[in-house]
């Protein structure tokens, strides 16, 4: 059994390249999920509230806990162990089981095999690794956890290794307290019954334990007797689906990059197809010469083929979206990782094709490759007071963000919605019968009835106002310096066409037209 203590902390330190002895805490849902030894010395514990932890340790670095990071960063460790001995079972990130029988014969003894593993892991920069060897996985895990104490006693040169001789597991486990089960209810109950250690618990009859404590209790009983399962289920090494293209010298032109990356993209799609998979989301990472990284997850309405992958790389470079890439030097490395893979069978074409939607997608992808990812849009209606805020554009292929438009929006427009909503409000002029501009005072009173108005370029014309309504105040984000104070008017001119006008800071704009 191979154990890396505090793996979430190790993973976070390696991911964010922090100092090894930094006081670090990973937070999940406002509580400390894991903390580094330095933080633990200052009294930070798992389950502590974030504010309390920060009070106890002022220099605490707080990061959100990411379970996927743990899994991802443990992958190199598993791969490194697999290169020297086969049959690794990852129980959870930071803990894996290896069958010792074969390696101990190959390397001569169990000690030799364990030290080879420790040396291999030290070579990839992982020093705090403990090894426990015993009859079963549970006993081996406890042995690995027990190394800490023995290590402190003996000389520091000794390897963090604990070997329980064959058949000695019940004896080793018998002295351990009940807390090692990590089942608080069972532990408390057994303590009340006068059972203090695993040895006491193992001495009970198996049938009685099953009758009294059920399946969970029976499992714990078997574990405490050192009789839990002996099998180690080998891991099937996962397929390498991600691809990386290196460019030497770095490429600075997008078309060069797209051309050079094409073969890699074809290899990526071919690799997926061989595995019987299709990819519906990819993570594209662009590394530059100066060490910048631009990462983005791209989704696809159907699934990616090679052209689509090249397009996504190009769009990410063009920075057509709000999240601009802002890269300043040449691209040295492009990495494409499948974000979501699905079975090819679920996406196969029907016998007679999949109907019009497929051709729609192809046509739109063509337009997208001409104009860019953000130029072909679908729209959803969101909440908002101003009409332009109420429409949200989503590039074709992206999934819409969940919006709740059922919320009330005080100040939204009553009646029919205008058919033309200007993307940028058009300047307008509204004057009263004497030719003075119409204004609204802070109490919301109109200075005079509007009599004439013009919108847009026809500033020299004056259209008589037939009927009007307003002002309807809109006070957006009054607590925020960037908030707006607007007054809305509806005006109908003498030809019967209606306009929606806005008054902001004595300036008139046309928001929309009911044409």
């Amino acid at each position, binding site marked *: 059994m191979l154990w890396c203590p505090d793996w979430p902390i190790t993973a976070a330190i390696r991911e964010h390249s922090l100092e090894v002895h930094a006081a670090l805490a990973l937070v999940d849902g406002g509580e400390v999920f894991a903390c580094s030894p330095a933080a633990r010395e200052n009294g930070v514990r798992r389950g502590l509230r974030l504010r309390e932890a920060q009070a106890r340790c002022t220099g605490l670095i707080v990061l959100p806990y990411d379970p996927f990071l743990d899994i991802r960063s443990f992958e190199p460790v598993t791969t490194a162990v697999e290169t020297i001995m086969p049959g690794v079972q990852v129980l959870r990130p930071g803990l894996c089981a290896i069958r010792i029988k074969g390696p101990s014969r190959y390397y001569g003894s169990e000690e030799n095999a364990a030290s080879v593993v420790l040396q291999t892991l030290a070579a990839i920069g992982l020093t705090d690794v403990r090894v426990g060897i015993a009859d079963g996985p549970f006993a081996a895990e406890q042995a690995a956890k027990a190394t800490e104490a023995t290590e402190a006693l003996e000389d520091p040169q000794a390897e963090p290794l604990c070997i329980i001789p064959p058949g000695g597991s019940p004896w080793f486990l018998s002295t351990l307290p009940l807390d090692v089960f990590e089942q608080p209810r069972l532990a408390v109950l057994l303590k009340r019954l006068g059972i203090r250690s695993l040895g006491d618990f193992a001495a009970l009859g198996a049938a009685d334990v099953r009758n009294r404590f059920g399946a969970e209790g029976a499992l714990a009983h078997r574990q405490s007797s050192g009789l839990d399962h002996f099998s180690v289920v080998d891991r099937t090494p996962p397929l390498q689906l991600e691809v990386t293209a290196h460019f030497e010298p770095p490429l600075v032109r997008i078309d060069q990059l797209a051309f050079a990356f094409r073969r890699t993209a074809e290899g990526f799609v071919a690799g997926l197809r061989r595995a019987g998979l299709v990819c519906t989301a990819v993570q594209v990472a662009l590394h530059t010469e100066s060490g910048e990284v631009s990462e983005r997850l791209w989704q696809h309405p159907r699934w990616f083929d090679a052209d689509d992958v090249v397009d996504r790389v190009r769009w990410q470079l063009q920075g057509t979206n709000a999240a601009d890439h802002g890269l300043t030097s040449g691209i040295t490395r492009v990495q494409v990782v499948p974000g979501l893979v699905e079975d090819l069978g679920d996406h196969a074409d029907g016998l007679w094709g999949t109907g*019009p939607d497929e*051709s*729609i997608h*192809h*046509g*739109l992808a*063509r*337009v997208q490759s*001409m*104009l860019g990812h953000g*130029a*072909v*849009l*679908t*729209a*959803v*209606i969101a909440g908002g007071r101003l*009409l332009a805020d*109420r*429409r949200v*554009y989503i590039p*074709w292929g992206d999934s819409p963000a969940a919006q709740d438009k059922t919320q009330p929006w005080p100040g939204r427009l*009553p*009646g*029919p*919605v*205008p*058919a*033309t*909503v*200007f*993307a940028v409000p058009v300047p307008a002029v509204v004057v009263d019968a004497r030719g003075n501009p119409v204004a609204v005072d802070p109490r919301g009173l*109109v200075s005079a*009835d509007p009599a004439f108005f013009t919108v847009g370029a026809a500033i020299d014309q004056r259209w008589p106002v*037939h*009927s*009007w*309504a*307003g002002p309807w105040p809109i006070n957006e984000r009054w607590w925020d310096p960037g908030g707006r104070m607007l007054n809305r008017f*509806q005006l*109908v001119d*003498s*030809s*019967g*066409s*209606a306009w929606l006008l806005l008054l902001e800071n004595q300036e008139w704009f046309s928001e*929309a*037209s*009911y*044409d």
Partner: protein
Amino acid sequence: MTPSAAGALGRKGPPDPGLSGSSALQPDVSSLPDLQFRINQMQSSRLDSRRLPTVPALAKILPGGGLQSGGSYAVRNSATLAMALLAGPSATGAWCSVVGLPEFSVEAAEEFGINLERLILVPDPGAQWLTVTAALVDVVSVVLTRSPAHLAPSDTARLKSRLRQRGAVLITQGTWQQCDSTLSIAESAWEGLGAGTGHLRTRRMKITATNPAGRLRHTYVGLTDLQRSPWQASGAGAAGERSPTPHDGGALFQPALKKSS
């Protein structure tokens, strides 16, 4: 002009002979190009022209009784009318596309019954208007666009032949050469707004459709008539059934009704 359309015109034609466009049928044609032009006008866009579902209020003034697949239509001065034309096909599941109209209001489109999930927006095609429009004509059923400032007649002809080949419909805001019909709002009146009171509630419009020969048909509709889906019984379109007699003009809210420019 098909006999049925001519009959419909006779029934619906306004009493004023100056508007009826009968001059196109006068026999004094002097030259061959003139004759060819008239033959082109009288040809339908395709022999077995399929009709797309259309809002009933507009179907009765369009030539052929609705949007013909492969046809092109122009809307002169109104985004509302363009939306009403899109609404019919979209409500029955057709994909629609809006090119080069950044001010297209999707919220109003939803009120008209346009399915936003099957609505593709390309607000800014830039210099590639023709390529983008042609690419979309290939895949969607209805394309709404703003007619570009300059378009070579050969490009127009190519786009038209592509429309016919694909059976798509092109609706342009602004003028368009050789379109099957040009729609515009001739008169419009709003109700619900006073002098500083109320808010806009309902609208009544006189919609005119002009065919290339200059024939003019018109109908009086309310905003709700345009928002009625094509599957609803056309008999319910009472406003559209109304014949445009002078008496009927009085049924509009007369004080508010003014001629548009």
